[in-house]
């Protein structure tokens, strides 16, 4: 057994930390408060060639695995960029997996290099108001019209749609009731977010405000056949492939925020003096922080195992789910304790832990709730009866 990162991986870590470090906490506070996309940050990572870290080399990327992608996003989050920084590039880093595996050569040649160099912003259009994690219940419908499809429907919680030129869009081409299996009849497209036919409305939300989360109203959006990813009716299968890596990446982001929060908490606990001594001397503050360190370290190990398994082509669902579960809790707890350590100052924006707190909370909800992870582990790993 070997717990060491490879030379490449160490290099990725250091280089990402260095680059992300150029964007300090006040930068993120301003972007978050102004609800403004972190263009400079995104461009810096695009210029550095980081957005194509998992894109195959023939399409302008580096061809690395999920382990490297997770190290990248973890360091981004840990720099204090948090979910604002991670979400600005999250989809570019791995969201195109279905296109890489199932897309046509033409589609890949046209899009992947542009994603890798940062020119093309993309988003992921799966969830709907009537179907969150119950993905097969989506109703956005793509109706054949000659060689085109005409799409109507609604999507919700589409991150970065406002800023994106294209969307990876999951639709139904056969209604739920007309499909033999509930996972049949779903078709995936990678197409332009034509503003004349898609109304994009940002959702007002608790945090991560530098990157929008949106509601999409799709009205007669015409999609040429060439924008279909893979076969008609197979979309669900294509999406499913990407779920475990997705969980790993969000786990890495949660872990990174936890590290950022802990770093700030330790600094404040050392500097702030009450009753004539640093508050970090109080076991009531020191122990929760030490406990968070232990929990973040433990969660990190599961995450490393999960990404290693995935990159080896081995089954990774159990570990990917566990990693997301443990990292999200460890990250949020660290943020909560960092806030508590700061006392009243933690509640002000000035010390940044309030922002970490809001963003860390998101990882316990997305990409799926902690409870759904437990459903998966209970049902699929332990073999208990389905509870819902």
């Amino acid at each position, binding site marked *: 057994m070997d717990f060491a990162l490879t030379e490449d991986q160490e290099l990725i870590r250091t280089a990402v930390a260095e680059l992300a470090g150029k964007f300090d906490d006040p930068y993120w506070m301003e972007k978050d408060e102004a609800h403004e996309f972190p263009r400079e940050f995104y461009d810096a990572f695009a210029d550095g060639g980081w957005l194509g870290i998992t894109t195959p080399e023939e399409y302008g990327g580096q061809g690395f695995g999920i382990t490297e992608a997770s190290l990248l996003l973890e360091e981004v989050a840990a720099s204090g960029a948090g979910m604002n920084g991670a979400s600005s590039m999250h989809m570019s880093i791995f969201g195109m997996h279905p296109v890489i595996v199932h897309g046509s050569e033409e589609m890949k040649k046209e899009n992947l290099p542009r994603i890798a160099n940062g020119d093309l912003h993309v988003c992921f259009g799966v969830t709907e108001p009537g179907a969150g994690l119950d993905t097969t219940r989506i109703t956005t419908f793509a109706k054949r019209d000659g060689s085109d499809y005409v799409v109507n429907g609604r999507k919700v919680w589409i991150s970065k749609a406002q800023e994106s030129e294209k969307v990876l869009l999951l639709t139904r081409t056969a209604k739920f009731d007309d499909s033999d299996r509930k996972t049949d009849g779903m078709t995936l497209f990678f197409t332009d977010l034509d503003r004349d036919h898609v109304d994009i409305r940002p959702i007002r939300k608790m945090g991560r405000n530098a990157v929008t989360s949106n509601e999409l109203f799709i009205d007669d959006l015409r999609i040429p056949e060439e924008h279909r990813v893979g076969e008609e009716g197979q979309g669900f299968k294509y999406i499913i492939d990407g779920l475990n890596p997705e969980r790993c990446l969000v786990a890495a982001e949660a872990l990174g925020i936890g590290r950022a929060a802990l770093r700030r908490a330790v600094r404040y606990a050392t500097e702030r003096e009450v009753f004539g001594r640093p508050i970090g001397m*109080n*076991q*009531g503050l020191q*122990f929760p922080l030490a406990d968070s360190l232990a929990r973040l370290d433990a969660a990190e190990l599961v995450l490393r195992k999960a990404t290693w398994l995935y990159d080896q082509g081995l089954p990774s669902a159990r570990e990917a789910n566990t990693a997301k579960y443990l990292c999200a809790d460890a990250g949020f707890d660290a943020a909560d304790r960092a806030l508590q350590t700061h006392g009243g100052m933690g509640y002000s924006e000035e010390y940044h832990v309030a922002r970490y707190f809001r963003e860390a909370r998101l990882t316990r909800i997305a990409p799926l709730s902690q409870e759904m992870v437990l459903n998966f582990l209970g049902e699929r790993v332990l073999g208990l009866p389905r509870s819902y």
Partner: protein
Amino acid sequence: MEWKLSDEQDSYREALRGWLGDVASPEAVRGWFEAADPAPFTERYAADGWRGVGVAEEEGGQGGGVVELALTAEELGRAVAPSAAWLATVLAVPALGTLPEHTTAWLLPAEDLPDSAAGVRADPDGRVTGDVARVLAGAEAAAYVVVVGAPGERTLRLVDADADGVTVRPRALLDHSRSVADVRLESVASTALDADAETVLARATDLAGVLVAADALGAMERMLELCVDYSLQRRQFGVPIGSFQAVKHAAAEMEVAVEAGRSALYFAAASVEAGLEECGLHAAAVKAQVTAAAAHAADTALTVHGAIGYTWEHDLQLLYKRARLDEHLLGAPARWNERIAVGLVLV
């Protein structure tokens, strides 16, 4: 709203605590445990006139109600007194309609809620047959209240413990301060009790919830006192361990549990006494909450004491086992929570 005990109740508590200090000192208690014989305590308790407190005068008691019973249970728990006979008997009073002269116990498993009982078999001539495991005070009782028939059509009968066909097998508990025994009935003569079984079982269940919770509260409070004393006395790195926040915060959290437990408990006791519509929920809430809190506090107390708390010589082990058994005695928290869930008509 007046939220305090009456002067009379305060004096009762004080007097009982004093008496227990004299009669049921830790040394005395350990002596009864080693001899595996709680009878000297049970007899002295009756002889000195405590047994009828909390039972109405018209039922042959000395007056008072559920609050007095709760005060008693709390003090008995604090002292780790061998109280299975007392608890079994006061729970049987609703079935008998009177305070029996000798220890009388429900013939039910000690880990179940009284009213979840499945009845034993009875012949048309009233002879009862059945096996009931782990009856509270099963080997101490002179008589048993036996539940006959299926839920919904249950009836109650009284059996003499020394009647023909009764076999009693005592079982050892880790907590030596309570006793249980397996009881076998083989065609044993019995007499009918005319109380309505369902009403009486419901009443006994509410009482059980309140009294076991009160017992746990007493044990928990005593453990907190031991923790505070020890953390001031024991020094490490040149300072009392009580100066470490990890220790003092642990004690503070126990204090919160004690105070929250006491507030809820005496409300539940008053509610059961007054027969409020939701008194069953109140009793269930304190059984689930206070006994779980006390079991948790027992673990904390052990941590605060370190290795000394793990020894036989230290009294903490007595209270630790008391609290841990209280969590499961007459129904574990999950069972009582289920009762609340059903009572609230949730899906």
